[in-house]
């Protein structure tokens, strides 16, 4: 519009100039004033005005000089005007173009701004503002551009932030995953989403990752601490172990690997070590237990124990309680093991000592009780040394044997004493025999009275001997029957000894008889000779009562000594204190008794047996006393086992009664049955007493008796 008016004005001006040249200037200045209206710079315009005026003037002058016609002049002016218009149009077009361009630029910038804003998640407030604000396009463009610039800058900043965060995230993730590849230098940032929210999200992620990382670091540290303690307890090189897991773990400085793999490896390493530790601990505890046992067994002095106090104090400790460094190291365990083996050796040597001692004891007991010691244990030590048998079992065996031998000795004691007495008596007997053979025994001399006394004693002993032998035999037989074994005295069965003795005795008796017969024969021979040679015949009187009675007077006859053998003499001397007849009978009896085993039962034997048995028959009633007459144990009856057999029956029955009462009753909490057998409580109900006062009748009987009454008692049944 302004262009059209301008052109119109120009045409008007030019047309006017045709009529009035002065007016043209006005119009010119007017048009130039229109063109330059926006610019307030006056100087160039004025210049252009003056230049134009001067040029027109110059042209007029030239024309005046040339004498151009008005037509030419008009044409020139028109041309000038046309050229001017052309120039204007071009300029206007140009200006239009540039305006369009600016608008385009603004729109572009606006778009860009919008894009940036949307990417950054911000509202594009500026555009709205610029719409409202009516400024020139250029101004607007400038503003816009500056805004765009600013936004770009901010975007760049934001992007850097993103890159930064993402880099960190990636780094941590890599660390966690343990991928060794270095962080890629190009971090791809999603350009379309750079909003704060996203950033925040990434920050959160980063934060989380950082937290995880710190957790892992802590975990790694924990693991390393555990590892360290384990290593120290077991005397291992911690650094080496740690480096084995991951090289970065070895040094305390620098970042440590926190990858899954490392953690896992650490875990497995720790488990492995823990297992090793438990193994070692168990081993050590075993050793410690053994050690304690050995100490206990051998009363090891405290000073020696003190050295291993730190071992034994861990006997009952659990795995985590053992934290002291080096307590589980190989060296230490070996050290303890050595000590244990030393103690064990000591123990075995002591065991051997004990075994030897025990064996000696066993032998001693055996010899004391005239038992044949078991020779089975003789080579025990060799067996132990060769490892065939355990020393403890040997010891146990020996102990068992000792107990057995002791028990046996106890059971043999009574009989053994009798045997010993009997042997002593036998000795005495043989001594007596010897003594009797001594022809000069009655010669007075030093100590003769003592010998005489001894002989007297021995005689009475020998008289008692048959009875004793009998008692001993029956006793041994009873013992043997009870035990089912032979009663051995230093390996020989006593019964056979007794039998031998009896045989010997019989032999002696026979010898004696033979001598007697011989003597009688001799006597007869003498008599015959006397008859033959006219000597006075007298009846043979070899063993008349008269002679016997003569003997009884105690007057020794040297003639008899000359005639009879020592045996006969002995026999006669035997009977010196008793009437002859009774003596012979008693001898006879003795003989039978001694034949106890050798001769099958004959009436006479039976009789003897009966007599011999008599004291034993009495045994149940007062057998103890009859036995005790000869028993030295009489003075210590409490030790006499036979005494116990006679404990009053009363106690047994009382025990029995107690047994009837159940024992388990007292400890239980629930209601117990009252099972005492004591007489019923003193306070009886009248009804109970009633029942006993009258003749015994049950309730039913009483009731039936009273049935005549019509009364009926209601009752009920419940289920």
């Amino acid at each position, binding site marked *: 519009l302004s262009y059209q008016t301008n052109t119109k004005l120009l045409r008007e001006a030019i047309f006017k100039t045709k009529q009035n040249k002065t007016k043209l200037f006005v119009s010119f200045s007017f048009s130039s004033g229109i063109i330059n209206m926006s610019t307030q710079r006056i100087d160039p315009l004025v210049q252009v005005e003056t230049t134009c005026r001067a040029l027109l003037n110059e042209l007029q002058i030239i024309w005046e000089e040339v004498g151009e016609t008005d037509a030419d002049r008009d044409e020139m002016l028109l041309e000038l005007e046309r050229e001017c218009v052309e120039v204007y149009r071009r300029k206007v077009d140009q200006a239009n173009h540039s305006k369009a361009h600016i608008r385009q630029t603004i729109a572009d910038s606006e778009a860009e701004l919008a894009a940036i804003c949307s990417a950054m998640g911000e509202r594009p407030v500026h555009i709205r503002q610029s719409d409202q604000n009516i400024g020139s396009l250029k101004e607007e463009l400038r503003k816009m551009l500056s805004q765009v610039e600013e936004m770009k800058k901010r975007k760049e900043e934001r992007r850097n932030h993103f890159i930064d965060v993402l880099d960190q995230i990636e780094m941590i993730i890599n660390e966690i995953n343990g991928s060794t590849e270095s962080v890629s230098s190009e971090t791809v940032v999603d350009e379309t989403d750079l909003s704060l929210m996203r950033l925040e999200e990434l920050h959160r992620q980063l934060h989380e990752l950082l937290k995880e990382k710190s957790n892992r670091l802590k975990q790694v540290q924990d693991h390393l601490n555990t590892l360290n303690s384990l290593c120290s307890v077991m005397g291992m090189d911690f650094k080496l172990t740690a480096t084995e897991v991951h090289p970065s773990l070895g040094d305390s400085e620098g970042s440590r690997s926190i990858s899954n793999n490392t953690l896992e490896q650490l875990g497995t390493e720790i488990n492995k070590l823990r297992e090793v530790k438990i193994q070692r601990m168990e081993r050590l505890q075993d050793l410690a237990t053994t050690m304690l046992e050995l100490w206990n067994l051998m009363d090891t002095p405290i000073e020696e124990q003190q050295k291993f106090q730190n071992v034994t104090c861990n006997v009952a400790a659990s795995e985590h309680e053992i934290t002291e460094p080096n307590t589980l190291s190989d060296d230490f365990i070996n050290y303890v093991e050595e000590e244990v083996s030393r103690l064990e050796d000591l123990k075995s040597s002591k065991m051997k000592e004990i075994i030897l001692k025990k064996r000696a004891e066993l032998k001693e007991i055996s010899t004391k009780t005239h038992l044949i010691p078991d020779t089975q244990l003789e080579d025990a030590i060799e067996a132990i040394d060769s490892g065939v048998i355990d020393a403890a079992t040997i010891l146990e065996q020996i102990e068992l044997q000792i107990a057995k031998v002791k028990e046996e000795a106890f059971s043999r004691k009574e009989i053994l004493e009798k045997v010993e007495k009997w042997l002593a008596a036998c000795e005495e007997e043989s001594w007596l025999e010897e003594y009797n053979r001594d022809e000069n025994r009655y010669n007075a001399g030093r100590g003769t009275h003592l010998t005489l006394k001894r002989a007297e004693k021995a005689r009475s002993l020998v008289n008692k001997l048959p009875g004793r032998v009998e008692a001993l035999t029956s006793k041994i037989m009873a013992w043997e029957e009870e035990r089912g074994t032979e009663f051995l005295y230093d390996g020989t069965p006593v019964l056979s000894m007794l039998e031998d003795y009896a045989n010997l005795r019989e032999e002696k008796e026979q010898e004696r008889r033979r001598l007697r017969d011989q003597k009688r024969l001799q006597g007869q021979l003498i008599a015959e000779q006397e008859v033959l040679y006219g000597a006075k015949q007298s009846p043979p009187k070899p063993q008349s009562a008269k002679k016997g009675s003569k003997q009884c007077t105690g007057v020794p006859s040297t003639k008899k000594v000359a005639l009879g053998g020592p045996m006969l003499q002995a026999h006669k001397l035997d009977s010196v204190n008793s009437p002859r007849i009774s003596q012979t009978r008693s001898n006879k009896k003795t003989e039978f008794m001694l034949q106890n085993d050798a001769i099958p039962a004959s009436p006479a034997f039976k009789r003897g047996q009966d007599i011999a048995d008599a004291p034993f028959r009495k045994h149940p009633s007062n057998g103890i006393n009859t036995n005790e007459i000869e028993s030295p144990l009489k003075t210590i009856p409490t030790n006499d086992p036979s005494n116990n057999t006679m404990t009053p029956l009363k106690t047994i029955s009382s025990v*029995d009664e107690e*047994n*009837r*009462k*159940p024992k*388990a*009753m007292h400890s*239980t909490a*629930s*209601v*117990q*049955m*009252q*099972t*005492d*057998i004591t*007489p*019923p*409580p003193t*306070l*009886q*109900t009248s*009804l*109970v007493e009633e*029942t*006993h006062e009258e003749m*015994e*009748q*049950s*309730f*039913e*009987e*009483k*009731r*039936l008796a*009273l*049935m005549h*009454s019509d*009364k*009926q*008692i*209601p*009752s*009920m*049944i*419940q*289920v």
Partner: protein
Amino acid sequence: MTSAQPPAPGRELSNPPTDGISNLRFSNHSDHLLVSSWDKTVRLYDASADSLRGEFMHGGPVLDCCFHDDSSGFSASADNTVRRIVFSHGKEDILGRHDAPVRCIEYSYAAGQVITGSWDKTLKCWDPRGASGQERTLVGTYPQPERVYSLSLVGNRLVVATAGRQVNVYDLRNMSQPEQRRESSLKYQTRCVRCYPNGTGYALSSVEGRVAMEFFDLSEASQAKKYAFKCHRKSEAGRDIVYPVNAIAFHPVYGTFATGGCDGFVNVWDGNNKKRLYQYSKYPTSIAALSFSRDGRLLAVASSYTFEEGEKP
């Protein structure tokens, strides 16, 4: 008596006898309950259904009863008769007679015989299959030292408790003479004797609140196991009140047993462990009889005055 007391444990059967109960027994085949009473009746109940199935009048008070099978039973009456009752027909035939009231009756499945004990100091065995007529049914009569007070059977063993604290143990296969003659180990009159279900012995109760557990085996080891215990007593102000123990019943499955006394209590005992397992709350009056059902699920308790204190108003 019933109404004044607080409700006793268990379910009360309707239509109870009108006079004291002398005994009750569960059938071996069902939950039927046979009850004998001083009101001269024998009643048959279905305990699970709580119904009275039959009522059989007798000539005198009935002192004991037992089942034969589910269709018939036997009764011992104070009118000296031993009767057989056929439930379905309401029919009664007299198996035989004693010379005095018949105190107790048992049916032995092992021997197929009815065994009765009477105050005429005899034990009689009856063959219930025999045709009517005493000569045919009576198997044997066995004199006893005293009046028979209680009988119990297990397998072929028969334990007879009589007055004078005598106990005779018979083998049913040889009744000619007792297998064992014993004296009660308790000092007072025997009230009840019951064999252990396992057949090794018997429990015996007396009027003086005591129960003895005895064993048949005479070996020392077995006899060492025997014992007696006090029960059904009350201590009041320093006075011991002792009640008769009227009834013993063994649980058929567990071998534990219940005792009932004149104190109105029913106690359940474990004889092996010597413990009381349970005490039912007090019944209104004396416990006259007890019986476990065949599977031990039910315990019948007869609570009725047993005349321990003579005539009561």
